[in-house]
């Protein structure tokens, strides 16, 4: 696929459709590609990479890129396209300045999961069909099923549909896929409050407030986050005792509620492996259950469940009485 993408990018550069290309640039290893902008065929040949580890969602970069002159080519995976569509809904990107080639994605791998298999001293990783072949310095060869080491966001992919594009690399679009992305949430809901509290304390107390979740999030596009703004009265840059558990992550999830496309980047980038997507998915699940199914970024939407209402909405007390929320 990488070759086809490079070929198509070159064509579009050559015929003047675009003057630069948003993609991923080869790193030191197979898994550390960096999102980058390419300006020429040579640069593309030298560094453009697309493999099982190029998971980064590039849609957020397009906010900045579409403020510049000229038109940029962006390869969007299905989940990236949801994010991009949502950014369009929020007037954050200029659709006219991006030429979008939709690319399919069967899942991206999580390097940490490979490491967790106890493999060290990795010298190379090869992709072979459904497997990764990992070679180590000790001349060991590990064959790992790709699916086993997929990112959480890929294991629970919600849709293979590319919701906004100018053309599709494969010529055909995917569709929503059945998934069990709410299972984890439901499992937590079924616990007792004490168990849930213990679970979340254990998770959230690890937070080091590196803000990677926020900064990578395509829904977090504030000019300045309330938690960074001294004028907001809520500024708190330090990882202070209980602030993350009691304020930061709750408010962040609330601020993206109705806008989160469930792209899973927050959990992917968390250096402390906090399952932050479980907060966002809780809101999504609640909104689906209480206000009808809604998928942010799916289509042109001006209002989402938090900025709309019905006169016969459930009363807040419903959450204490409805089933499935533990005792």
């Amino acid at each position, binding site marked *: 696929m990488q070759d086809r993408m490079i070929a198509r990018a070159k064509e579009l550069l050559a015929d003047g459709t675009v003057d630069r290309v948003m993609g991923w640039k080869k790193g030191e290893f197979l898994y550390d590609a960096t999102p980058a902008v390419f300006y020429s065929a040579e640069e593309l040949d030298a560094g453009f990479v697309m493999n099982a580890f190029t998971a980064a969602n590039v849609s957020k970069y397009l906010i900045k890129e579409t403020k510049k002159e000229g038109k940029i080519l962006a390869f969007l995976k299905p989940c990236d396209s949801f994010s991009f569509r949502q950014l369009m809904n929020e007037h954050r990107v200029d659709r006219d300045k991006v030429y979008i080639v939709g690319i399919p994605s069967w899942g991206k791998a999580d390097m940490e999961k490979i490491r967790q298999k106890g493999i060290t001293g990795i010298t190379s990783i090869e992709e072979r069909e459904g497997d990764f072949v990992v070679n180590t310095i000790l001349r060991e060869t590990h064959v790992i099923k790709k699916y086993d080491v997929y990112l959480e966001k890929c294991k629970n992919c919600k849709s293979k549909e590319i919701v906004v594009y100018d053309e599709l690399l494969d010529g055909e679009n995917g569709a929503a896929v059945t998934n069990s992305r709410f299972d984890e*949430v439901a499992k*937590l*809901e079924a616990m007792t*409050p*004490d*168990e*849930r*509290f*213990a*679970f*979340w*304390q254990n998770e959230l107390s690890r937070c080091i407030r590196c803000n990677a979740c926020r900064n990578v999030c395509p829904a977090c596009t504030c000019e300045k986050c*309330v938690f960074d703004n001294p004028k907001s009265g*809520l500024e708190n840059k330090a990882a*202070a*005792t*209980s*602030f993350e*558990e*009691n*304020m930061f992550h*709750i*408010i962040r*999830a*609330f601020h993206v*509620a109705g806008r989160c496309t469930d792209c899973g980047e927050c959990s992917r980038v968390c250096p402390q492996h906090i399952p932050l997507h479980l*907060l966002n998915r*809780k*809101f999504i699940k*609640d*909104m689906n259950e*209480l*206000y009808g199914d809604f998928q942010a970024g799916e289509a042109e939407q001006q209002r989402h*469940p*938090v*900025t709309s*209402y*019905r*006169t016969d*909405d*459930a*009363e*807040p*007390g*419903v*959450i*204490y009485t409805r089933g499935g*929320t533990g005792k």
Partner: protein
Amino acid sequence: MQVKNENWKPLIVAFCCNWCSYAGADLAGTNRLNYPADVKIIRVPCSCRVNPMFILRAFQRGADGVIVCGCHPGDCHYTSGNYYARRRMTLLFSMLDYLGIEKGRTRVEWVSAAEGQKFAETMNSFVETITSLGENKRLEDLRCKTE
């Protein structure tokens, strides 16, 4: 579990919308309807002015319960404010529950300007709930602890 603090009294923050619930509270006062002094009212123009941040802030600073009062759905002075508040609070409370915060520390109640009685009853029952739940430990900011 810690030993119950003998001197502990619940601290309850009530956000009341200016047009209905604050007037309802006034009416409770005018009619001399008693409710515990643990309830402290903050006046806001509309229940939709209540930011989840205010609620978490109150808990962070040591409140044991937070109640949001607004006009009955359909009666909002600003036509739609309490509908938005209803969704926001529903989602927030659900999230707090999900995080393992005790149910009942938060509540939304619709109190009209004529419902002084309801206001007092609501506050009495809410204080009772909070008293039975005890001190808010789970949402408190440890930095606010006094040694």
